[in-house]
């Protein structure tokens, strides 16, 4: 989680939104800033022009009322005012009378000029000036330092830059915080979904109590999960009820047949018929038990029997048990089993699964067939297989053989319920194994492959889950039994 978090954060929708908002807001802040900036600049320009115009009017008035000599004096006086404007006054011949503005253009009117400033090195000082010719032919120039305007511009741009930076940092931090809050909620939902698909139907999305969108979504999901759990429970209850409804009378039928057999005495014809009826009854009961077992296993909740088991020993026991029987039917069974492979699972179910595969291999091959059981370790991958060189299964049928009651045309009429491989598939699924049938060229190869690494992790997490969920699970398990009891009594 630690290393991938920044990347995951950036990929979240909320972070993307935060980033988009940040960009949009920053852009609008920049536009707004520039509008303000231009307005301020224009206002400064207008003020400066008005100031200069007013000054020129005053000086023109001075010339009219006091005369040219006074004008020059007046200009000199004004130069020394605090915060004064800049001036230049020349007579009709162009001789300087007062002021020190230089580099002036020849034309009258407004212009911006640059005057080298020894104090500032290479950078000249900029001035906005207005040049007018007075009534007596004097040339009057009044100007103002543009430096103040430049200072304002710099200060403004600086402020804008810092504000933008602060803005981005704040929005991105807020975005990251929001996103991680978002991610933790999403993770909580994902964990719940994972727990449910692992068979813990009682798992629910935790609520924060904030009544926000997420809480409402979680509450809706939880209600949906409650509903699904109710449906699943009623489904399993219905199948249990059916199992009971049929098994109880079938059991009584069996009991009566047995009593009849005990009473039939030496009547061998009658005994034979009763024996056949008993066998048929047992077959029906077998089919029913198998259906109920498959449903139980498929519900994924049968993990109470999970232990650490020695898979190699289990495979050896089962293949040894079948090898003698196979030999008697003229089939050789060889086993290639890697030693001391440990596994987390239900040993009884795995034995039954392997036994079913071997039952099939022995039943569906002709005399002289070779059957091979193998269990090998390919790195972190365990591969178990049962392969024969019998007639095999056509590729088009290979997926169908796992279906309940599915039987190949040539097997119809032979013994068997057609449920063996469904049970294998259910047990494989419960243990997270991949189960497939392939062509063994010739024959059939049944392969179970599974990941030890994943199972090791499961082993750890299930052990914890098991401790935590002991209470509720016990109650859940009692539920259907009580229902069954009712069904039995009614």
């Amino acid at each position: 989680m630690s290393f991938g978090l920044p990347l995951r954060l950036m990929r979240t929708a909320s972070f993307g939104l935060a980033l988009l908002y940040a960009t949009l807001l920053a852009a609008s802040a920049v536009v707004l800033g520039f509008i303000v900036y231009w307005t301020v600049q224009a206002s400064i320009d207008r003020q400066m022009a008005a100031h200069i115009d007013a000054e020129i009017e005053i000086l023109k008035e001075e010339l009219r009322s006091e005369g040219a000599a006074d004008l020059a004096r007046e200009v000199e006086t004004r130069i020394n005012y605090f915060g004064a404007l800049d001036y230049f006054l020349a007579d009709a011949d162009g001789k300087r009378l007062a002021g020190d503005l230089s580099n002036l253009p020849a034309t009258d009117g407004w212009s911006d000029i640059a005057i080298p400033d020894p104090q500032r090195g290479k950078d000249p000082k900029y001035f906005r000036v207005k040049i007018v010719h007075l009534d007596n032919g004097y040339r009057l120039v009044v100007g103002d330092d543009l430096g103040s305007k430049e200072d304002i511009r710099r200060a403004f741009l600086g402020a804008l830059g810092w504000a933008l930076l602060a803005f981005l940092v704040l929005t991105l931090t807020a975005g990251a915080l929001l996103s991680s809050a978002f991610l933790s909620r999403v993770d909580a939902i994902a964990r719940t979904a994972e727990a449910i698909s692992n068979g813990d139907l009682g798992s629910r999305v935790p609520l924060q109590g904030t009544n926000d969108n997420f809480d409402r979504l979680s509450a809706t999901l939880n209600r949906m999960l409650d509903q699904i759990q109710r449906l699943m429970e009623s489904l399993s209850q219905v199948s249990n009820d059916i199992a009971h409804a049929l098994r109880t009378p079938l059991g009584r039928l069996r009991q009566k047949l047995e009593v009849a057999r005990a009473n039939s005495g030496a009547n061998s014809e009658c005994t034979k018929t009763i024996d056949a009826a008993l066998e048929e009854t047992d077959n029906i009961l077998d089919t029913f038990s198998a259906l109920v077992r498959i449903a139980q296993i498929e519900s994924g909740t049968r993990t109470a029997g999970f232990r650490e088991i020695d898979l190699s020993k289990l495979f050896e026991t089962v293949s040894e048990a079948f090898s003698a029987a196979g030999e008697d039917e003229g089939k050789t069974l060889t086993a290639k089993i890697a030693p001391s492979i440990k596994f987390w699972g239900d040993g009884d179910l795995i034995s039954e699964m392997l036994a079913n595969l071997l039952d099939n291999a022995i039943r569906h091959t002709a005399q002289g067939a070779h059957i091979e059981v193998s269990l090998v370790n390919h790195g972190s991958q365990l591969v178990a297989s049962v392969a024969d060189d019998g007639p095999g299964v056509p590729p088009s049928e290979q997926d169908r053989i796992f279906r309940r009651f599915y039987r190949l045309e040539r097997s119809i009429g032979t013994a068997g319920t057609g449920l063996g491989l469904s049970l294998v598939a259910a047990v494989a699924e419960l243990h997270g194994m991949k189960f497939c049938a392939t062509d063994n060229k010739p024959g059939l190869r049944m392969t179970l492959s599974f990941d030890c690494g994943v199972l090791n992790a499961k082993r750890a997490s299930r052990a914890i889950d098991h401790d935590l969920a002991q209470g509720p699970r016990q109650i859940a398990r009692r539920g259907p039994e009580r229902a069954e009891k009712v069904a039995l009594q009614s």
Partner: protein
Amino acid sequence: MRVLIIEDDAETAAYVLDGLRRHGHVADQVSDGRDGLMTAAGGDYDAIVVDRMLPGLDGLAIVKMIRGAGVKAAVLFLTARGGIDDRVEGLEAGGDDYLTKPFAFSELLARLNALARRPPLTSIETVLRVADLEMDLIARRVKRNGTDVELQPREFKLLEYLMRNAGRVVTRTMLLERVWEFHFDPKTKIVETHISRLRAKVGSGGQQQLIHTIRGVGYVIRSPS
């Protein structure tokens, strides 16, 4: 053998009671969990057959309580469901064996016989004998009439179980459970094959056969009388 049946299904109870009495056993029946607890705790029974699900008090609770009270009788659970989880729970609660409904009476009887006549733990046998067949459990050797009989480890286990129950019928499923630890019924004739191999090895050379098949029930090893 005195047997108590705690079962609320009247037909099953009658079937079991009738069967046991026919075979010369003394059998009592109660149909309620609470009565079952009282009777089981008070009476001196060799074996108790108890249904997992009972009105009043369930079978698991009854067995836990009577075990807590020091009742030593063998306990066999009956249940309509043969789930593995149920089996483990039953054994953990103090049950000795487990049978899924519906069952053949012969299966129940064979299991009760095996349970009720278990030797006390103090007398650990080191040599098992049936007629001239002798099994040394320490040296893990088998002799018939003084001659060594070579057995595979699984055949040894099978013969050991038969000899420990000498004179009593053991069923196919009992053998599958005890010898191979298979709690399911394989379609392949595993038990039959191993029994016939064992017979060939133990009874070779025209000696009298000791292992007998009881049709529709199971096998028994006994001295020729």
